[in-house]
């Protein structure tokens, strides 16, 4: 028999990230999603809204080697069980199916917190937080942080249908106002989040939009922000193999402060980006191209 080799754990001094064998202590359905609470010592203490965790699927013999990334929904550093981390999982493929089915007591090798959090304003300004589907998961914690700083917070939740909305009740607790849109009109107003944004930005005098959800929605947030002369901070969800910056699979074209476009790793330089820095023009038909003017792009004609 092959001896068992548990995956590693790590907590190096100054690293501000840990790798732990987390334990599922609660798994409950939330609409079509599953809301998991895991005891993950070390992650809760370090995490800020907008950061994510990367989960290994199965043990050291699993045929699924790549990590699955999930936004951190909430953390509680001093729970009865030690620090806990909550995530909201949508069924997508075999890895998420396996996570959804985990019983309490199951172990998940988790790395986090990862990525850059949502930057929060210095001043108590009005903010609009927009979540598409399970993309709303990190926004309620963000809302709490913003309101503690005196910000007026509006949350917009959008989804294809009512069962794909996440956190309607939580939104009412965490925000000054909640607006809901569904594509089919099964809850809130029928349409897209972008339909309600202009009025909301104007009415609240918002100076920043935060968003998390599908790429098309994030692009529309950026466009609405631009029309009103404000900034959108968007959390992207690019396919990631490692989540920790070692594989280079999660890149996307983003302008730096000098205007140069570079293919940057969304797991370490993101997942939160300023909307006006993202090269939206490169995202075409489910793929992301390398813009001709990106640093190190193939010479035109040489591809």
């Amino acid at each position, binding site marked *: 028999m*092959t*001896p068992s*080799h548990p*995956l*590693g*754990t*790590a907590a*190096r001094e100054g*690293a*501000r*990230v840990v*790798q732990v064998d987390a334990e599922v202590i609660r798994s409950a359905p939330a609409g079509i999603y599953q809301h998991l609470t895991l005891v993950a010592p070390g992650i809760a203490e370090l995490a800020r809204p907008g950061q994510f965790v990367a989960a*290994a699927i199965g043990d*050291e013999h*699993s*045929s*699924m*080697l*790549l*990590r699955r990334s999930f936004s951190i929904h909430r953390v509680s550093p001093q729970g009865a069980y030690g620090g806990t981390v909550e995530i909201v999982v949508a069924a997508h493929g075999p890895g998420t199916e396996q996570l959804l089915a985990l019983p309490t007591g199951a172990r998940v*090798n988790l*790395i986090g917190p990862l990525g850059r959090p949502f930057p929060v304003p210095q001043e108590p300004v009005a903010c609009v937080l927009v979540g598409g589907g399970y993309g709303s998961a990190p926004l309620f914690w963000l809302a709490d942080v913003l309101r503690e700083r005196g910000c007026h917070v509006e949350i917009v939740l959008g989804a294809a249908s009512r069962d794909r909305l996440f956190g309607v009740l939580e939104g009412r607790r965490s925000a000054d106002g909640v607006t809901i849109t569904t594509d089919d009109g099964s809850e809130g107003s029928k349409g897209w989040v972008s339909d309600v944004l202009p009025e909301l930005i104007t009415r609240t005098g918002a100076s920043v939009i935060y968003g998390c959800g599908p790429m098309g929605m994030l692009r529309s947030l950026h466009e609405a922000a631009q029309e009103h002369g404000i900034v959108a901070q968007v959390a992207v969800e*690019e*396919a990631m*193999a*490692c989540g*920790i*910056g*070692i*594989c*280079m*699979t*999660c*890149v*996307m074209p983003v302008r730096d402060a000098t205007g140069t476009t*570079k*293919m940057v790793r969304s797991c*370490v330089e993101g997942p939160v980006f300023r909307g006006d820095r993202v090269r939206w023009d490169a995202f075409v038909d*489910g*793929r*992301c*191209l*390398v813009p001709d003017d*990106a*640093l*190190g*792009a*193939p010479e035109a004609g040489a591809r």
Partner: protein
Amino acid sequence: MVDLSVDLAGVPLPSPMMTASGCAANGREMHRFIDITELGAFVTKSVKAAPVSGRPTPRMAETDSGMLNSIGLQGPGVAAFVEEDLAWLHSIGARVVVSIAGGTASEFAAVARRVVRSPYASAVAAIEVNISCPNVANRGLVFACEPSGSHKVITLVREEVPRGIPILAKLSPDVTDITEIAAAVVKAGAHGLTMINTLLGVAIDPVRLRPHLAATTGGLSGPAVRPVAVRAIWQVSAAMREGRVPAVPIVGAGGVRTGADALELLAAGATAVQVGTAAFNDPTAPLRVGRELADALDALGVDRLADVVGIAHEGGLR
């Protein structure tokens, strides 16, 4: 205590364990999880002369016990690599295998020159020449698929690299006869061989029914390719024993996830072992596998790792 030290073409290493090029970036990210100075050596991402943006995305597809990648050698170019990455690796005291790439044989040589003449050259334990990249002058056919192109690259790199820094040629398994390429590069002056690089593959997106990778083809890696790595090491090691290829050390790579996997590569003829894709699953893997390897050798009653290198060719443990 098992003696894990190895001699890599004259360079003593305290451990056979290494990262694999392109699977650990240039060190800082992995150093958040393990102390990379404890590795036998840290292998950097293949670097070219100028910055490279890499390929469009999706650049990866998970496959059963493996993955396809089409990163396209994204990197900062050798000047920035030396100033930012090699300087940092030098500052923490890491032993570094610098992986170099090029579109022409002279680009490889220019990159090697820049590295070995840098103020941080004392950190360089070896230069690994990634000849599995497209030869601009030969319709983009990879150098490693053809003996004369491979020979030329190693010849030009050899002229730039001083004595004391071994040159490892990294071979592709996607060839008709890997011993022929091995012979060509060793005759050109390579002091060791790293094998294997990835195997070419294609995955089709089951919904869109088009290639999953934007670049269509990608390199297959992970435990799924381990038998191919063991085969390649076996064949070249056997050819060395028969005198068909001059004997040089082999650095094994391909699908290593546990100590038992590493032992397979060693017994087939590898002196050192790289851990690539498994690090995406577990960033501690390059060190963890080393600990498991020591335990496995201990359990077999072996005191020195060197005693099992190539032992499968001699009828195995007695």
